[in-house]
């Protein structure tokens, strides 16, 4: 058994009075591809936002490589994590957003080059070569000097992936990356993710509404409902033979709406 790269231990999260996560336990092994499905408001996005340190859990522990993400030890005492601690761990995690969040004032090449140059302090020429290679891989070699506003949604999302990949994360988070796209642009983005999944060693957590896609690439599918993991297992079991009533209902609603 390989040690998990990410562990959630009884993680809870409340926004004011609303408890969106009510005790999440989850292990992710290196290289594993996990799909998170569930109705909107079920807390799927919050799970990955906690790992990316965009939100702080109300209670529970999240570990990355065995290290507590949100708490740090000094001597015998534990303290809430400071920025330095978070930054040290965050280096292993990358994220692609629903609304891309590209930097509008930079070309797409600059978008890809900025973090490796200033965060990892790598040499510009090397970074540039890697960025060009990466943008070529996502099919945008001819667009490197354009600004985000000049691209289609699908192209923007591919840039966002290249940008995240530049940091060589061990875990990549995808937050409904096709939800903001026009239907005809979804395919090109899924294609890139599929290639990434096939090539391997990076663990991936995908919050998605694309069931066929989840079935195709995930090693494991988690069904979230009202802040708890209601059902989990191999994609075939979950999507083809759902056990719980709520999952059945969710899946039927889903296929009928398509």
């Amino acid at each position, binding site marked *: 058994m390989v040690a998990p790269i990410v562990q959630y231990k009884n993680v809870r999260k409340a926004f004011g009075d609303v408890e969106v996560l009510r005790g999440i336990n989850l292990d992710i092994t290196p290289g594993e591809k996990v799909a998170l499905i569930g109705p909107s408001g079920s807390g799927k996005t919050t799970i990955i936002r906690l790992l990316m340190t965009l939100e702080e859990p109300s209670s529970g522990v999240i570990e990355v490589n065995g290290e507590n993400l949100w708490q740090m030890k000094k001597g015998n005492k534990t303290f809430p994590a400071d920025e330095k601690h978070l930054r040290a761990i965050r280096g292993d995690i990358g994220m692609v*957003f629903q*609304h891309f969040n590209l930097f*509008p004032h930079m070309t797409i090449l600059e978008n890809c080059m900025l973090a490796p140059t200033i965060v990892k302090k790598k040499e510009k020429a090397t970074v540039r070569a890697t960025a060009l290679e990466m943008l070529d891989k996502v099919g945008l070699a001819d667009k490197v000097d354009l*600004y985000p506003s000049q691209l289609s949604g699908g192209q923007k999302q591919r840039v966002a992936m290249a940008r995240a990949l530049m940091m060589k994360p061990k875990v990549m988070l995808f937050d409904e990356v096709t939800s903001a796209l026009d239907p005809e642009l979804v395919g090109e983005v899924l294609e890139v993710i599929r290639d990434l999944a096939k090539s391997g060693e990076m663990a991936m957590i995908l919050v998605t509404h694309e069931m066929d896609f989840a079935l195709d690439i995930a090693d494991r599918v988690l069904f979230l409902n009202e802040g708890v993991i209601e059902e989990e297992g191999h994609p075939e079991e979950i999507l083809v033979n759902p056990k719980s009533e709520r999952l059945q209902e969710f899946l039927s609603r889903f296929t009928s709406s398509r």
Partner: protein
Amino acid sequence: MGSIADISLVLLSGLKITLIVLILSIIFSTLIALIAGLSRVSNNWLVSGFTGFYVEIFRGTSLIVQLFWFSYALPGLFNIHLGSDVWVAVLAISLNYGAYMSEIVRGAIQSVPAGQTEASIALNFTGFQRMRYIILPQAIRMMLPEYGNYIIQILKATSLVSLIGLTDLLYYGNIYRSTHLSEAPTVYILILAVYFLLALPLILLTRKMEKVAKKGVVHG
């Protein structure tokens, strides 16, 4: 027509002070606006609270009152002598417009979409890097048109300095008018024309910056 040339010559001797006050005020008010604007978005409530206090005081009272107040209170009450009333004028104008302009700095920083901050965290930037490379470059683009408008306001405000005895454009104009009463219309039209000539490049630049700003804030 001879009088237009005469008056222009007289006014020219005041142009220097007007320009000096204008340029110094632009520099200092910009610096104050940046510092105060950044302080107001600070997480430290002491820093943001104190800056808020400064901003409200200077926005809540009138520039002309502040100008008189400084010119009497600095030497009289605090025994501070700045050497020249030029500095009194620059201080009052800069503190006043620095307060106003800090609000556009704050507004622009806060209007950068939250997604930009989130992407910066996901890419593991430090807080400083986030401000320096992501937030400020976008915020500055957004504030340029309003900044341009405020520079024109500062230009207009420099006309007040004659009231505390500085020998600017308007000062020389008033002197000339008091000895050539019938030429008053020419005197003031010429002064207005000089101000407009100074404002014109700013007006055109501001319009251009409006276009740039519209481009810069496209949601990426």
